[in-house]
């Protein structure tokens, strides 16, 4: 088989897989635009004959989607801010020093990554209620998500810092910086891309977080969109178009963010952010 034919075949396979992968997304949007009867028609139509755009306005109003999205945003931004602030310093130290204690620390951090949220939620819940943190449930969720996302962030950003040559920092010291100054003015700008990419990945993760939010936030007006979407669905739900409209409004912003920053994210993850 010639080179071109193999490339075409691989392209076809790739497109097929992408179609399979993206089909649920397509089905979400199509369903949200269908009317009640079109939704349950057999065979199902793959394109709504009469798009019901008013579904979106109706769901936005009746389910208070704006409030849910706002809560998701607060939680995601809070978690990202906390992780970035604490994780950057931690990753830097782990990148610059080499000894047994650092290796042990790194191992423990990776171990934290292994524990699933559904396992951690009970001890965290008990601990937080002892500290009275459940009185501010969104803060509690921010803390829990930050703890969960921290290892991932530290490991990614550590490798970014390791790609910044130590000689640059030493040059900074000789040129008149303090240790902190060299970190802030030389190392940090060079690691910016890696930190940004890791922060965006954590933002998207936190924006969709469900387990901690569901178990710690009882008040509906403080719940994020993931929990709001879940409470929309009961055992006898049949308003799938409304649910899909909610879902579309929920994933829309994340999807847009990813598409906009896609190139940057990929290059930041693969190149180590320097040059």
């Amino acid at each position: 088989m010639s080179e071109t034919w193999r490339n075409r075949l691989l392209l076809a396979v790739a497109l097929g897989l992408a179609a399979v992968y993206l089909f649920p997304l397509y089905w979400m949007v199509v369903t949200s635009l269908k009317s009640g009867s079109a939704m349950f028609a057999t065979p199902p139509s793959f394109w709504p004959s009469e798009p019901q755009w008013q579904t979106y306005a109706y769901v936005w109003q009746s389910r208070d989607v704006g409030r849910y999205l706002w809560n998701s945003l607060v939680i995601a931004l809070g978690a990202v801010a906390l992780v970035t602030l604490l994780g950057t310093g931690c990753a830097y130290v782990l990148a610059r020093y080499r000894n047994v204690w650092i290796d042990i620390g790194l191992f423990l951090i990776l171990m934290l990554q292994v524990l699933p949220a559904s396992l951690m939620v009970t001890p965290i819940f008990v601990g937080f209620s002892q500290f009275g943190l459940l009185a501010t449930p969104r803060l509690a969720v921010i803390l829990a998500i930050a703890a969960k996302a921290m290892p991932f962030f530290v490991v990614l950003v550590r490798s970014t810092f390791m790609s910044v040559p130590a000689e640059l920092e030493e040059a900074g010291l000789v040129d008149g910086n303090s240790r902190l100054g060299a970190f802030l003015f030389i190392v940090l700008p060079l690691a910016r891309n890696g930190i940004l990419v890791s922060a965006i990945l954590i933002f998207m993760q936190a924006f969709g977080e469900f387990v901690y939010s569901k178990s710690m936030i009882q008040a509906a007006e403080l719940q994020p969109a993931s929990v709001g979407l879940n409470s929309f669905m009961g055992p006898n739900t049949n308003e799938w178009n409304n649910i899909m409209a909610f879902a579309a409004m929920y994933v829309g912003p994340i999807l847009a963010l990813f598409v906009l920053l896609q190139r940057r994210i990929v290059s930041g993850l693969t190149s180590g952010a320097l040059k």
Partner: protein
Amino acid sequence: MTAQIELTEVNKHYGAYHALKNINLSIAKGSFVALVGPSGCGKSTLLRSLAGLEKITAGRLTIAGDEMTSVPPRKRDIAMVFQSYALYPHMTVEENLVYPLRMRGVSKTEARARAQDVAGFTGLSGLLTRYPRQLSGGQRQRVAMGRAVIRSPKAFLFDEPLSNLDAALRVSMRKEIRALHDRLGATSVYVTHDQIEAMTMADHVVVMKDGVIEQQGAPLTLYDRPENRFVAGFIGSPAMNFVAAHGIDSASIALDLPGRPQIAVSRHGEAPLKAGQAVVAGLRPEHLRIVEGEGAGQTGIGRFTLPVRLIESTGSLTYLSLGETGEIALVEHGREQLRPGDRLTLSIDPALVHLFDPQTGRRV
């Protein structure tokens, strides 16, 4: 001459590893000092200790008379050129140049004027708005130099700055660095593993090995009178030939070569040789003379004959490898009509024979 940098009994340990052993070194104001030695000899550690990037574990360091032993780098008022140049990749050439000034509170306008000035004499004038990644190796080297000279530090430290350049550029940058040093009247400490760089650039060469200073002095002193076998072999290119020998009387030795040839040696105040004393004779390749015409082919007093193994000619110089295994090197000006297997008769000026103790390696 006053000492600009003074090291007294400096030691550096990395855990159990003893990297610098009792270093005593005085660097005169305005001098160009080269630290030279094989890799792992401690020369870079010593330089980094001067900069404050390494903490010395014992001993004392003063710069311009001020105690600097445990002062952080930014307060030492020294400038350093790194092997990788360490240019800040996120800054333009101009920003790189003014950075040390801005860090010391020099105003933006004054710093920019100084940058223009430095760019002028380092040949960077048209490149100020470029980023380091847009420059060639030689240009990056100049930026690194410019960043060092833009303020007038108490000393310049160079850490193998030319090792990433190609051979031709290295030779021209060598001259430029030395010219810059003279122009600024600065004190420079230059680390290199290349003895030619050290010999050609420095006023004072410090040869190190295993964390110890083996010998220091003017470049030609090191060449003419190496204190031990290591320095003798390290300084000079191609490297000195070492031949086992033993004393015949106070002024001649027998070389451990076929025919046991005897050559005269002259003594300059060293202890007289004893008959039968084992020594190692050091014969520089460029000091061996080929005897032609009368007396050629004879081995005897002052002469020895060796077969030719390999002939390498660069046009101006001819490198010969002599002896059964080609162990004796010889350099001749001009060209030789020779073939492998030819036998050559050699002689050497008694004043140019170096003798070392076979055990301690010290000059005898």
